[in-house]
């Protein structure tokens, strides 16, 4: 499981980052393309998102969604909370979060892929949302101040980061004392061969 202590992943972190960026650039530009994972409204329904929330969102907010589970399933957000989404992609989880925290709340999505940022910012403009903001940055170096978040969310992103301890430590930095981390990610029940772990191409295949 991802929450257990693990040895460092034997992969070039920068090469992996570029590979991930390339894959999700494709998902931003061509959300209905052929991928090894589901995307969009079908995926949101499959993962158990609230139909009412998803129906409210325009296609642009949902079509590039490529999460792996529902970070709101163990606890929903409260009105007025400040939220950071690590690896916000096309913004889907940020828009779901905005609906939960309401007008007094604030959501900041952080992503490293220019095309995803353009898409999420455009959707926020279309929706007229002034309390959601998208910033360029890395999961290991979030562009936000210390102790500023009530909740950090993330969906299908941390498994794609070579140094998970660095990511969790960064999340710790930005969470206020008493704040929550609610993330969704994949975990494997059977070990992946070391040769496969070293192959950057297989991480996003």
């Amino acid at each position: 499981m991802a929450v257990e202590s693990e040895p460092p992943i034997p992969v070039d972190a920068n090469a992996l980052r570029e590979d991930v960026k390339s894959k999700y650039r494709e998902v931003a530009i061509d959300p209905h393309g052929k991928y090894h994972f589901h995307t969009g409204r079908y995926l949101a329904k499959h993962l158990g998102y609230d139909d009412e929330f998803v129906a409210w969102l325009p296609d642009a907010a949902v079509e590039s969604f490529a999460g792996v589970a529902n970070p709101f399933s163990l606890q929903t957000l409260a009105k007025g909370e400040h939220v950071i989404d690590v690896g916000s992609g096309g913004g889907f989880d940020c828009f779901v979060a905005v609906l939960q925290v309401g007008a007094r709340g604030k959501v900041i999505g952080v992503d490293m892929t220019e095309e995803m940022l353009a898409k999420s910012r455009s959707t926020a403009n279309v929706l007229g949302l002034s309390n959601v903001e998208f910033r360029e940055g890395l999961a290991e170096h979030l562009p936000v101040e210390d102790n500023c978040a009530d909740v950090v969310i993330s969906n299908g992103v941390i498994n794609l980061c070579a140094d998970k301890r660095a990511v969790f430590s960064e999340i710790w930095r930005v969470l206020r004392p008493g704040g929550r981390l609610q993330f969704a990610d994949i975990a494997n029940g059977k070990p992946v061969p070391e040769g496969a772990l070293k192959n950057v191409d297989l991480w996003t295949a």
Partner: protein
Amino acid sequence: MLSEIGFVDVRIGPPVDTFKGADGEQKARLFQVYGYPFFARKPALNKENRHG
């Protein structure tokens, strides 16, 4: 790892068959890959820390 960093109340929700019906299903089955929701909390400051 979460506990080592200092997070408390760590919980893992039920698995989701994320790749069911997708092109990646076969590989996911091979390594029993599922999606999970995770929850953890950064401890609140106690009174001593808050005023100290």
